[in-house]
């Protein structure tokens, strides 16, 4: 039976189609947005309500072996937020690393309908998909970690770019990955013997290649394969004072290529240590403003508890030494590493407060909202539950200056924030949380409300306090079904796993079989994940991006 819904009289923000608060009816049929409903339709009266496409999170950590390790590591965190079972829904826990069902419900309550897990090691991707299968309410995908893959390093050493391309294609195809992720390219390989790389031209132990070569090779591969999303980069030296130079150098090395720089806030630091720590958000924004090939997500810091989870093993060890907090590390054979350290961002801590300011500077200094996206690098900068608070900071300069008075005093003289009067409009918020990330991901059916789009729609009660407004969506429609009402999940839906449709390449198998035998501990036959293991899925076509 065709299900149809007419959303009447709401103010529509659909940046892809230039709709900026236009009062307009929206029609939904069979899970898609249509020009006009055929026949009877349920009516949602959206008079005085604000209608946006469902939110799209381009960078979050919600499902992976490391995320689950973080859950297991932090029972004390879960005690802060318990979510009881309701008919048709499952129970769970928050807070910074919520359990799977709860993750889906919490995202949906905010009006998000598409989220991307930003890091999965290939050998653990079977796990990642099983977790994603248990995250309801949202469509989801994952980026495969490649920046320290030893097979790629070997091929690179012998200069065989074509082989890298075929191997990457095989991985994406076999593991149903959506994109390519680089984390501290070369540095995580160094970490396997307890070291890191300092800069782009340092040779990686045993492999005689440099981070620069890895970056360039995989960016080339990404474009050659015509993946929907650009290469997704967590640059070298995350969190380290003075790292902005290596970040700039990374972008320069890839000039002219589509590139997404993840959580730039963590990569925009000046100074030589945490005492002389300064903001380089302006330098970064200047570069980004002049280079339309670059998109970024911010990795905004929010005050309170966070759990840092990253494949960047050496950084996590540094953070453990800095904080003395518990430290989890898992190096993953052939592929990558991972580390987890609980962390608390404090308003009265100079470094934390400046990190907070740097994030906001980044948002406010980058001129083109289509290239800067909202993220906390959940849960590294703080949990995604705080997105509404960040939106308020962006839309309300007065609120920003109040916050600035509360944080560590030294920050005031080290940030441009007091001089940045820019306030984001709802239209711009719709871009940085919906239209922009959907476009950067190459998801043509997401992030807009034109005919043919997936009927993933978030409807809010307009309020002066934007945090209040975005905390609880009045309605959320997922694939044309009402799944959230008055901020509460009313119906569970499974959501789809999205992956890039890369053709398989079985010719490489003989060679890979030998490499597996020598260096892995699993049979190559048990490596690929059959499509049947993803009960709800959708392939996104590849090809030269427009």
């Amino acid at each position, binding site marked *: 039976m065709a299900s149809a819904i007419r959303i009447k009289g709401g103010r529509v923000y659909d940046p892809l189609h230039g709709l900026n608060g236009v009062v307009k009816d929206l029609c939904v049929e069979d899970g898609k947005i249509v020009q006009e409903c055929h026949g009877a339709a349920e009516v949602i009266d959206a008079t005085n309500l604000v209608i946006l496409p469902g939110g799209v999170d381009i960078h979050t950590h919600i499902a992976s072996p490391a995320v689950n390790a973080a859950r297991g*590591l932090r*029972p*004390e*965190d879960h005690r802060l937020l318990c979510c009881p079972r309701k008919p048709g829904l499952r129970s769970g826990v928050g807070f910074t690393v919520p359990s799977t069902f709860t993750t889906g419900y919490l995202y949906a309550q905010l009006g998000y309908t598409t989220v991307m897990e930003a890091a999965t090691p290939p050998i653990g991707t079977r796990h990642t998909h099983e977790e994603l299968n248990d995250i309801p309410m949202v469509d989801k995908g994952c980026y495969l970690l490649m920046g320290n893959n030893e097979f790629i390093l070997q091929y690179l050493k012998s200069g065989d770019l074509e082989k890298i391309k075929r191997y990457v294609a095989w991985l994406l195809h076999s593991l149903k990955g959506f994109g390519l992720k680089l984390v501290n390219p070369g540095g995580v390989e160094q970490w396997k013997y307890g070291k890191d790389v300092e800069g782009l031209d340092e040779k990686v132990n045993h492999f005689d290649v440099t981070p620069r070569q890895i970056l360039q090779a995989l960016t080339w591969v990404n474009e050659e394969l015509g993946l929907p999303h650009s290469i997704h980069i967590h640059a070298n030296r995350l969190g380290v004072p003075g790292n902005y130079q290596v970040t700039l150098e990374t972008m320069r090395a890839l000039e002219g290529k589509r590139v997404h720089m993840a959580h730039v806030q963590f990569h925009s630091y000046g100074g030589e240590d945490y005492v002389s720590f300064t903001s380089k958000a302006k330098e970064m924004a200047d570069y980004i403003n002049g280079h339309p090939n670059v998109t970024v997500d911010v990795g905004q810091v929010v005050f309170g508890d966070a759990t840092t989870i990253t494949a960047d093993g050496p950084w996590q060890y540094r953070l453990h030494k800095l904080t003395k*907090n518990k430290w989890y590390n898992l190096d993953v054979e052939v592929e990558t590493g991972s580390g987890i350290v609980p962390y608390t961002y404090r308003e009265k801590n100079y470094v934390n407060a400046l990190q907070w300011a740097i994030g906001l500077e980044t948002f406010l200094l980058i001129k083109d909202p289509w290239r800067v996206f909202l993220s906390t690098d959940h849960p590294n900068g703080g949990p995604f539950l705080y997105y509404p608070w960040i939106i308020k900071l962006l839309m309300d300069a007065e609120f920003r200056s109040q916050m600035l008075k509360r944080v560590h005093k030294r920050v005031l003289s080290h940030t441009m924030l007091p001089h940045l009067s820019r306030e984001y409009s709802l239209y711009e918020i719709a871009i940085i949380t919906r239209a922009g990330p959907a476009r950067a991901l190459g998801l043509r059916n997401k992030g807009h409300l034109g005919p043919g789009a997936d009927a993933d729609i978030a409807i809010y009660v307009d309020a002066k306090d934007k945090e209040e407004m975005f905390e609880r969506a009045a309605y959320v429609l997922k694939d044309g079904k009402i799944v959230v009402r008055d901020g509460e999940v009313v119906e569970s839906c499974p959501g789809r796993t999205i992956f890039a449709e890369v053709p398989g390449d079985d010719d490489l198998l003989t060679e890979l079989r030998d490499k597996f035998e020598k260096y892995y501990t699993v049979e190559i036959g048990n490596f690929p994940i059959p499509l049947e293991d993803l009960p709800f899925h959708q392939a996104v076509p590849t090809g030269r991006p427009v």
Partner: protein
Amino acid sequence: MGEIILTFKGMGGSTVPLEADPITPDLLQLKVRAEIERLPLYHGNEQLLLGDFFSVKGERSNQIRLRGDLSQVKNIGVGMQTGRIVIESSIGMHVGARMTGGEIQVHGNAGDWAGAEMTGGLLWINGSAGNRAGSAYRGSKYGMRGGVILIEGSGGHEVGGYMRRGLIVVRGNLEDHAGARMVAGSIFVFGRVGGRTGGGMKRGSIVCFNPLDVLPTFRLTSTYAPLFVTIYLRALRSRGFSVPEIGGGRFARYCGDLAESGKGEILVWQG
């Protein structure tokens, strides 16, 4: 304003523990009897009413008296901030856990996690305490962060584990790992202690009045008569907690745990 007397009616032979978190002065002092009787208690997966398990006398008071065998009743006084609870029998797990103020007296034994992660107030246990009194729940960085736990009987394993601040006094014995990984605060033990006392401690003091096997990662640094011990003992006596007379005895001071930062101390009374 009198006191509220809650007399336990038992659970009809059921062995399923009863969770009675609402029994705190903070809540009861705002309620009349009928409201108290309607407070929810949790018996396994069922939510029942306080009146199903307790007969209630008195209302609107921050003084609560509990009667009957409560050894299967958990969570009394969890998170309490003010007032006083007197328990005239033994009590189940978590009594006074996470309390921030007020006073609980137990005229009997307490189950495990008594006063766990408390930050203030006084928990006075007439009998013995179980494991992990004043300690941390699994995963938490800190156990007790303030307040006082007085135990007239003995205590179980890991008493005062992960302690950050506050005082625990035990007249009887303790099992293994007293003060495990503690960060600060003081533990006094007048009986004997089990093995690995102070293992992993960073700072803080454990004062023992009987000889013990000190871990190899503690180092004897001096023998002296610490003034703070005398002051603490005087304060305890003035509050009515009888402690043995030790005269002006001297204490051997062991520094450790050298496997961690090594700034904690175990003081052992030398007579």
